[in-house]
């Protein structure tokens, strides 16, 4: 941490406390110095030029900021950047393999799973995380049989994607796209 000994600046207003971090985003080392109050979302958007993740609500209620942290979905607006040292962060910009779209990206296009597209990066990262969770046997609130591997039917997908809001109401396409990749 920097500036720990003197946090009071002019006029009694505390100066920001900063930290030097070694982030890894989309497989690329990204050393940054951030205000310790800063969220991962702001670091990505304001400092690293990765504007795919969106600030839809800044309260963890809409899911537009969803990224993958060590393969698991995380709400980057509720993640302090200082907690993201030494983890692997993947954003929507890191899903495709060069020019080859991630299967979820291709499925979103094929199934018309977006309209304005603002929530889409969060939907995609969330869907990638949801598929991984299901593959690892994680149940959801609607999983009927907790002893069997979850089967990603429509109800399961709707539940598992319920943290990602889409005001355009493209849910039928989103559910179809996620289901297509799950099969």
């Amino acid at each position, binding site marked *: 941490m920097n500036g720990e000994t003197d946090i009071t*600046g*002019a*006029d009694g*207003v505390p*100066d920001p406390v900063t930290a030097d971090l070694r982030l890894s985003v989309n497989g690329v080392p990204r050393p940054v110095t951030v205000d310790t*109050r800063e969220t991962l979302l702001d670091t990505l*958007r*304001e400092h690293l030029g*990765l*504007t*795919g993740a*969106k*600030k*839809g*609500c*800044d*309260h963890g*209620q*809409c899911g537009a900021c969803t990224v993958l942290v060590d393969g698991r979905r995380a709400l980057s607006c509720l993640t302090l950047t200082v907690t993201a040292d030494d983890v692997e962060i993947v*954003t*929507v*910009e890191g*899903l495709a393999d060069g*020019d*080859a*779209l991630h299967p979820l*990206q*291709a499925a*979103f*296009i*094929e199934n*018309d799973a*977006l*309209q*304005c*597209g*603002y*929530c*889409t*990066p969060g939907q*995609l990262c969330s869907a990638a995380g949801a598929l991984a969770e299901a593959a690892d046997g994680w149940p959801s609130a609607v999983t009927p049989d907790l002893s069997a591997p979850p089967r990603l039917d429509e109800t399961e*997908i*709707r*539940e598992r*994607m*319920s*943290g*990602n*809001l*889409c*005001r*355009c*109401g*493209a*849910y*039928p*396409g*989103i*559910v*179809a796209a996620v289901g297509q990749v799950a099969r």
Partner: protein
Amino acid sequence: MTEELDAGLVAGRIAESDQMSEPSAEREMGRARRRKEDARLVTGRTMWTDNIQLPGMLYVAFLRSPMAHARITGVNVSAARSRPGVVAAYSGRDLAGEQGSLPCAWPVTEDIVIPDHPPMAVDEVRYPGEAVACVVATDRYRAADALEAIAVDYEPLDPVLDMTEALAEGAPKVHEAGNRAFTWKFAGGDIDAAFRDAPVVIDRTYVQQRLIPTAMEPRAVVATTDGDGFTLYSATQIPHVLRVMLAMTTGIPEHKLRVVAPDVGGGFGSKLQVTAEEVLALLLARRLGRPVKWTESRSEGNLTVHHGRDQLQRIAVAADRDGRIRGVRVELLADMGAYLMLVTPGVPLLGAFMYNGIYKMDAYDFTCTGVFTTKMPTDAYRGAGRPEATFAIERAVDELAHELGIDPVEVRRRNWITREEFPYTTIAGLTYDSGDYEAATEKALAMFGYDELRAEQADRRERRDPVQLGIGVSTYTEMCGLAPSRVLGSLSYGAGGWEHAAVRLLPTGKVEVVTGTSPHGQGHETAWSQIAADALGVPFEDVSVLHGDTSVAHRGMDTYGSRSLVVGGVAVLAACEKVKERARELAAHLMEASADDVEFDGGRFRVRGTDEGRTIQELALAAFAAHDLPGGFEPRLDAEATFDPDNFSFPHGTHLCAVEVDTETGRCAIRSYVAVDDVGSVVNPLIVEGQVHGGIAQGVGQALFEEAVHDADGNLVTTTMADYLIPSAADLPEFTTGRTETPATSNPLGVKGVGEAGTIASTPAVVNAITDALRPYGVRDVRMPCTPERIWRALAEAEAAVPGQAPATGPAPAAVPGFAPVPTHGSTPGAAPPPAPASEPIRGFVAPATSESAPEGGAR
């Protein structure tokens, strides 16, 4: 999902193939093309306003009123100015000399009260969240932090929250001129005759709760100047209208102001506005000579993005005992909020011609009073006036059916305009050009399994199943394609309703389409490409659509009111036709033939009866080279066209909803939902499908989840997405959709518009279904949003009114008047008031004498 989605067209790679494809024999019109917009959207490569970074950019934060209504007795920003990183801080008074007044473009009556609306409050705040001061700093955190150093002295004034109380004598005033903004009337036929001695009168009052549009992308603005001209980037639906209005408001000459709508993340009417923040960003850029950016937080947005709906509707339907409607009378109170914004007063007027729905009748009478309250102004929200109208008439027609013991579909059938009667001029004076209500309804009933569900419903009622089944019907139409300019003029709107397009054939044969529409999720880049590809015979991939920048798309009326395809798409077609005629002239010259002998097919001009021909791409290059042109022929193959429709378009359809309501807990779940829509000819069924889905989702949101709630002091308590609930994937069922098709006759594409259809149709379908489920318990209405608590309370109230009431299979019981009055405001989500029995008079309305003539509870 529906028919014919053509899976072979998906782009598996980010870059589209650059290969010149052969002109396709398949028409683009009607083809489920995957969207051109999507590749950039799914890879995070889009340019949203908040993504824009400019050298030396400063960030703006606003201090907002914590009170609904107060006099400002002092604002001190000096401490904020000395905070780290702060470049400037201003109060409303600091900017009073230059900030002007936010515009209202729709003075609906001669005597309308349009109060001065400073972008930042100067003397008085009139709604919670109104900006009172701002800070400009080197980053957004410093700007936000410095707000706490601003001192504002408020002298609280009484909030004005309830429309009926606001109109009462001696009520606290929002503005000096009083709380009545206007009263607007419309009448057709002899309404007194229709109600006189009417055997049945259904007289109901419905509350259209206040909604928060909640586009996923928060508003954002970037303003910059080079010392001469200004550029404003804004998350707006209306770059063109905005430019004109900002020039008028700020005094920046129109030719020195460029407005850009980059990628915009949804609008639903909420970005059809000239906002305080847009004006202030320009003024700050002008004062400071540096670029400034403002991006709202979600809570800021819930407070200060204009709200929607918020009407109190009294509707009376006079009918004969066979169910034939004689007349409809509507008295509306419309909550304007604290000020009249861009089209605030016009929103209820857009519904004024729709309360007669798809029905024939002898008389219609409409009165609307706009009322000021100390709330955020209302304005357009998806459907804008037409969902409210459709809700009222479709709820009332269901009540009429119940009253008479006739199936709700049958009552509609007895009243609707039949397919042979088109074109039909309604009692509201609109001429519906085409439609087939029979076909849409028959298709919907079959897809829904109406008879089977009715049988199941009867069985559940018989068994006294605690989970009851309800079936809701909604047969809607809407006036779309806003709008014929002469009609807008007759309604005192400040502008026209035309749309513009320019089409340019480039030297290599590629095509640029420039449109005045401003998409924010509607897929215009794809659909306009399809229209141009068909018209010019060029490959879909060879068309680019440019929009949203007033320096590129120099003329336009933008996107709202289901107008883009119906007006703007038709303008694209018209411009393409002009280009084609130029190309034909050039082709004739080069082939030494008469233009009359040159025919066009699949992108090639050919001399009739010969093999001699030129492709449109060859002609583009020939025009560019200009070596051999007809006399006086300018070396270009481009054209512009403006389309101003003669009439509105009238999409229609039948939506059916089945709900299961747990009568012990109030839990309501949609079991199935069928939507059959007739939107005329279809350019891209994939896009139509998405628009229908999204519309239904928002309409269901109003029916079940959404409400902007204020406390007794006038504070908005639904300021986050945990308090204001928009539907998630888990909250909605799979929708079953279908289409019927009667082409519009008012435009050459035969299109009618689809953006608002789902929202207009679905809300009454859902509430009709809930009411239908609960009728045996004596419940006649549940106020929206129909939360489990409201449903449970409605059941409890009905039970208290008629103890021992059980799911009856016999005659429906009369609802009993005399419940405590229901506050329409001042509730919190945790303490929702009981719903009003529908017979309860709502303060502010005088019951018409004929309302007593309705015999209650008979004939079932």
